[in-house]
C-alpha cells in the first residue's frame, strides 16, 4: 500500500513499523471536509449571484478544490499519520508537507486524556492525549483511534507508569 511506503521511506533508520490509524478516521475526515466544502460552495454561490451573468469564474475553482478536498485529502492525511507503542514509548508521526515525528517515553507521561468530539463519537473514534512536564510538547495528541484501542492504550501507559513508580 502506498501509505506504508511513505512512512517507511521517512524512517529508514527506525526498525519498528508504524501502526496505521483506524480506517474510520479517513471517513471522519471526509465528513469534516464535506462540511468545509459545503460552506465554500455556499459562499461561491453567493458570489456567482452577485456577479452578473453566471460565468462560473468562482464556481469552477471552488468545485475543483472541493473535489480534491473530498477525494484526495482524507486519504493523504490518513496515510501520513501513524503511531507506535513499542518499547514503552508512544511515537506519533504526522504531517504531509511538514513532517513531525514525536516520541514520548511512558516514564515521562504525567497524565493521560481520552477525548471524543461529536463527530468522533459518530464514527466510534477517540483522541488520546498524553501530557508531559516539558514546555515543548507539553501535550501530544493522537487522533483517529478506535474507541476501544484508545482506552486500551491508556491502560497500557498507565500500567507502565505505576510499575515504574513502585
Amino acid at each position, binding site marked *: 500500500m502506498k501509505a506504508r511506503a511513505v512512512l517507511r521511506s521517512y524512517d529508514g*533508520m527506525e526498525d519498528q513499523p508504524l501502526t496505521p490509524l483506524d480506517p474510520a478516521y479517513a471517513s471522519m475526515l471526509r465528513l469534516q471536509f464535506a462540511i468545509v466544502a459545503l460552506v465554500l460552495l455556499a459562499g461561491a454561490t453567493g458570489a456567482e449571484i452577485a456577479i452578473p451573468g453566471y460565468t462560473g469564474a468562482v464556481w469552477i475553482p471552488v468545485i475543483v478544490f472541493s473535489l480534491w478536498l473530498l477525494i484526495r485529502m482524507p486519504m493523504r492525511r490518513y496515510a501520513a499519520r501513524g503511531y507506535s507503542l513499542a518499547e*514503552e514509548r508512544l511515537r506519533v508521526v504526522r504531517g504531509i508537507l*511538514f513532517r513531525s515525528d514525536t516520541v514520548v517515553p511512558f516514564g*515521562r507521561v504525567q497524565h493521560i486524556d481520552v477525548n471524543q468530539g461529536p463527530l468522533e463519537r459518530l464514527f466510534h473514534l477517540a483522541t488520546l492525549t498524553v501530557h508531559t512536564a516539558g514546555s*515543548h510538547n*507539553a501535550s501530544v495528541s493522537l487522533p483517529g483511534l478506535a474507541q476501544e484501542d484508545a482506552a486500551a492504550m491508556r491502560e497500557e501507559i498507565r500500567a507502565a507508569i505505576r510499575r*515504574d513508580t513502585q
Partner: protein
Amino acid sequence: MTLEAAIRPQRTHPKTFAVKAATMLTQLVVPIVVGGYTILDDGDLADLLTYFLPLIVVVIGLQFVLAYLQWTRLTYEVRESDIRVESGLLSRAARSVPYERIQDVSVEQKLIPRLFGLVEVKFETGAGGGDDLKLAYLTEAEGDRLRDTVKARREGREVSEAAVEVEVERAEANVLFAMPPRRVLTFGLFEFSLAVVAVVFGAVQQLDFLIDFDLWDIDEWQQRLAGPEQYLAGLGPLAQFVGIAAGVAALLAVGVTTGIVRTALREWNFLLERTETGLRRRRGLVTRTDVVMPIHRVQALRLKTSFVRRLFGWYGLGVVSLASDSASANHEAAPFARMQEIEPIAATTGFALPSGEMCWNRRSAKASVDGALINLAFTGAIAIPVWLFSPLWWSALVPLSIGVLGAVREYYLYRFDRHSLGDRFIYSRHGWLAPKTTIGSRVRFQSVEIKQGPLAKLRGYAVLKLGLAGGTFEVEAMPVEQAQRWRSAILDSIATTDFSQMLERKPSDAQV
C-alpha cells in the same frame, strides 16, 4: 517559637496591616495630589477642606477597616503533609498545597515591608500563571523558618529548631559566587541599552513642544552653542560637529546611566551560596529577593554572553529549573562572571561544562546553503523591481544588503554552531554574534521530536526538539540520520529513570 505553635492556624504578622496601609497611602498620594491640584485651581480652600477632607478621611478609614478585617480572617497552617491557607471575609477560600508539589520557596522583600523588617513568602508549585501560594507578610525569621520547614518536610525529615539553625549557619560559609559593588557597576556598563536611548530619543521628539526651539534645526543648535559672541558659529562645520557630538554624548550618557542604575537595583550585593539541598541566591538593592533552587530539580544550564561581553571575557550562567515556568522565577545563577568563576557553580549543579576533547558536530551545510539562497532570492525579488522602477535606483541596495547580511549569518552559523552528544550530557551552541550554549542532561528530557519542512525533507536535514521542563532544547539543521541516532540514544537514557524518581531523589545520590 516551637513546632507545636506552628501546627495551629496562624495569622500573618500584625505589622502586615501597617505595611498594607503604608502601601495604600503611597498609592493614594498621587490621585489625591492630582485631584487636589485640579480642585485648588478653583480657589476656595475653605470649601475644599469642608467638603473633601472628610470624604477622603472616610474612604481611607473604610479601607483600613477592610484591610484589618481581611487580616484577621487570613490564617495559615503548616500541617503534616501540606500547607493550608484560609482567607476571605464574605466568601471563604481554602487552599492546600502538598509538600510534594512545592518546587521552590522564595522570600521577597519590597521597599515598604523592608522598612518594617517583613518578608513575603511565595510557594511555587510550577502550576504556571498566578496560582502560586503567597503569604504576606511575615517576619524575616518566620520566613526563613517556613522555608526550611517546607524543605525538610518535603524530604520527609523531622525538623527541630536546632537543625534549622545549623543549616542556616553552614549556608553562610559556602559562598559560590558574589558580586561586589565594583563588579555590579562594571556589569551595569555592559547593560547599556540602545532601547532606552531610542525611547529617550522618541520621547524628546514627542515632547519637543516643551523645548522652545526646533530640535532638528542644526542652525539653531549652532546659534545656541555659539552663545552671544557667535564665536563658534564663525567656525562653521566645526560648530556643527560639536553640536551633533554633544547630542550623541548626552544620549549615550542617558543609556549608560540607565544601564548602571537598573543593574545596581537588581544585582546589588549578589550572593550565590551552596546550601544543603541547593543553590541560594540573594540580590537586590531596594527589593531584595531570596531564591532557593534545589539542585536535583535543575534541568539544564545555559551559558550566555553577548557580542561585546565576549570580547572582554564575561559570561552569564542561567539555570533551567522545574519551577521556572512561572514567569517570575528568574534563575540566573551568575549573570556576569569570568569562565573560571562559572566552572565551580556548574560543577555544583552536577553538570559538566563543555571540555576541549569533546567531539563536536556541525550543523548541516545543506541547511545553511538553503537558508542563504532563500534569503538572497527573497530580498532579490524585492530589490529587482525597486531597481528597475524606482526613481532612486540605489534604494535597491537596502533589501540587497539585508539579503547579503542574512547569507553571511548563515555562513557564520555553519562555521560556529556546534552540538555534541556526550555520555551523560548534551551540548548545543547556537548563535551568530552572541552564541549561547545549552547543556542538557540526557535523562532529564520529557519527549523527543524530529521535525522536517518540505525543503528539509528533500535535502535530508531536520530540527531535533527535546521537551524540557521549564525550557526548550532545540538543535536546528541536523542531518536527519544523526537526528535519528541522537533520538534513540536519548530515549535509551530516558528509559533508565522514571520522572518521579528524578524529582524526589536526594542531591547526594542524584544521577544527573
